[in-house]
């Protein structure tokens, strides 16, 4: 049984101009000790889907899912009291802006202590010891002094270490890191990523890393989910994703990386922009920017083929021998049927 098992997750926001589907039909299936990455550009719904999992979205959000279970417990059925026991304890999250995630009015020690008190309990002395241990574990020099520091006295990297200490204070089984290094410099980013991976290895917790940086994905994750405009467009092993992307968006994104462009005079680009709330195209959401799009793509919304291990959300997944044979359709043959359009409950095929 998977640790985190999500199928068909959709999040809609009530806006003044009607419901906006920020996330639609996302599946993610994380086992114990696995390192996953969710990658996508801004507006791809990568943070929203994880905030929905944590139950941290405001009331304007409508979260629906066919299945949303953590360690066998159905998260949708839990009362908010029961859910709070899981969130922060067994399943915790760190955010992009370490400076603004910490409360400026309390010392680091108080804020870590709050977590431990809430979830683990123990005497004041035990909790203090635990907080000191945690600070040492995340590589903060001189924990006895730093525990009394206020957030403004810490640098960005140190603040992120404190956030990590808080997140792992209750020995979570799943840690979700939402762009944990985006606000940090590269040398500090390398330190923080290394720390996260080391903690993951030591404790055996599962780690979901939300990022937009393909370099970070390549160096940390084992499995990758690619999202585009709220849809999950493909899901693959990191090595085969970089070697054989299945979705045209992934392929285009990878070739737009400066380091993969080689000696070409100009970088390959993806024309246009990510569709917003009001300019969603019909059919496949990527079709206006896709170099392979056909009439079929402009009319019919694609559904992942049930026999596709990468569950590529495309009528014509790119053919790569490494991931088995794709559905029979080819771009020359747009009406060769969409093999899965009548299959709403996509069975999970794990690679």
């Amino acid at each position, binding site marked *: 049984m998977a640790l985190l098992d999500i199928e068909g997750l959709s999040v809609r926001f009530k806006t003044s101009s009607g419901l906006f589907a920020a996330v639609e039909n996302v599946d993610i299936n994380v086992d114990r000790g696995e390192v996953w990455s969710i990658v996508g*550009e*801004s507006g791809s719904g990568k943070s929203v889907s994880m905030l929905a999992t944590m139950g941290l979205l405001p009331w304007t959000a409508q979260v629906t899912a066919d299945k949303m279970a953590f360690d066998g417990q159905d998260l949708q059925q839990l009362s908010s009291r029961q859910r709070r026991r899981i969130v922060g304890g067994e399943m915790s999250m760190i955010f992009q802006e370490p400076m603004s995630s910490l409360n400026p009015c309390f010392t680091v020690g108080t804020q870590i202590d709050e977590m431990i008190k809430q979830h683990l309990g123990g005497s004041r002395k035990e909790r203090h010891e635990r907080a000191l241990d945690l600070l040492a574990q995340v590589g903060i020099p001189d924990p006895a002094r730093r525990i009394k520091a206020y957030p403004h006295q810490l*640098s960005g*990297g*140190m603040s992120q270490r404190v956030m990590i200490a808080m997140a792992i204070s209750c020995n979570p089984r799943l840690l979700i890191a939402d762009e944990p290094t985006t606000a940090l*410099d*590269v*040398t*500090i*980013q*390398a*330190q923080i*990523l*290394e720390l996260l991976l080391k903690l993951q290895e030591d404790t055996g917790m599962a780690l979901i890393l939300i990022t*937009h*940086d*393909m*370099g*970070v*994905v*390549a*160096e940390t994750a084992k499995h990758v989910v690619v999202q585009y405009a709220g849809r999950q467009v493909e899901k693959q092993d*990191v*090595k085969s*994703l*970089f070697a054989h992307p299945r979705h045209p968006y992934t392929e*285009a*994104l*990878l070739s*737009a*990386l*400066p*380091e*993969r*462009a080689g000696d070409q*005079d*100009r*970088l*390959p*680009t*993806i*024309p246009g*922009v*990510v569709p917003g709330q009001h300019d969603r195209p019909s059919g496949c959401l990527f079709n206006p*920017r896709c170099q392979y799009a056909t009439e079929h793509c402009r009319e019919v919304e694609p559904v992942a083929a049930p026999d596709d291990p990468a569950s590529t959300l495309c009528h014509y997944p790119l053919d790569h021998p490494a991931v088995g044979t794709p559905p029979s359709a080819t771009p020359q043959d747009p009406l060769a049927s969409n093999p899965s359009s009548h299959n709403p409950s996509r069975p999970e095929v794990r690679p």
Partner: protein
Amino acid sequence: MSRDAVLSAVNLTRHYQIKGSPFSKPATVKALNEATFELYPGQTLAVVGESGCGKSTLARVLTMIEPPTSGQLTISGHQVSLKEGQRPPAALRREVQIIFQNPYGSLNPRKTVATMLEEPLKLNRKEMSAAERRQAALEMIAKVGLRPEHADRYPHMFSGGQRQRIAIARALMLNPKILVLDEPVSALDLSIQAQVLNLLADLQEEFGLAYVFISHDLSVVRRIADDVIVMYFGQPVETGPAEEVFTTPRHPYTQALFSATPVADPNRRRERVHLKGEPPSPLAPPPGCPFAPRCHLATKECTRLDPPLEHVNERVAVACIHVDQAAARYAVAG
């Protein structure tokens, strides 16, 4: 190759005085220390380094927003006056334009695109008629890949990539020779970043612009830069042609910076040059070499003297007393 530098800086330095509270002494922050370089038409000079290393101070000095504390800045053969509070001549200011990181903050939300583009002409080309200005604005809009109907729209109606195009168009209205780009693509998504980089390359070819490209993204820098300056704590620590600096980094900081940058290739697991700790506080600079507290090669000697930038060959200069050792170690590890 005989070329005339469009901009040259010699020992460019900018210090800030911090007043301090009634209980502390005033202090001096050395934001930029002795930067020396030359910039040629059609070339790109990249400045890389982490936050607080003086990249943006350099941009402010080059664009004459602030005068340097000492050193010489020559733009198109004219030396820029050093006096505090004195405005440089308008003719010089026209030659250098700047593009900022955040296209959401650098455009006036209450002005249309055309108004913003015409404003520099209104101020500097008094002889132009309104119709001529409009025409010039429309031409520039087409050059940066926007459509004529965009001219009368407001910034909020554009995406981040389009706004950066508007900022570029505005900077080019007066035909500058030098464009200072302060992290121009950091706020943009990957798919948009490539579009803007290509646009910059096209414009550079068309107008023979010289770029000072400030960035922390090494994969972008490696792609577009001709020359590179690596800065740490306000000082250039390594300068040279991009190709050579990227293939054989010689300063331990450059090596650490390069190896810390994630590479989008899951099959490549490099050994990292580990960098302990964080950059020092500018109010309490360490004695000697500012990188010594984080450097794996640091010796007692390093804490005694601040190494000057010295040429290791004709083109590359490095500020490190252990440069031979560092280069040798990198060659073995790489």
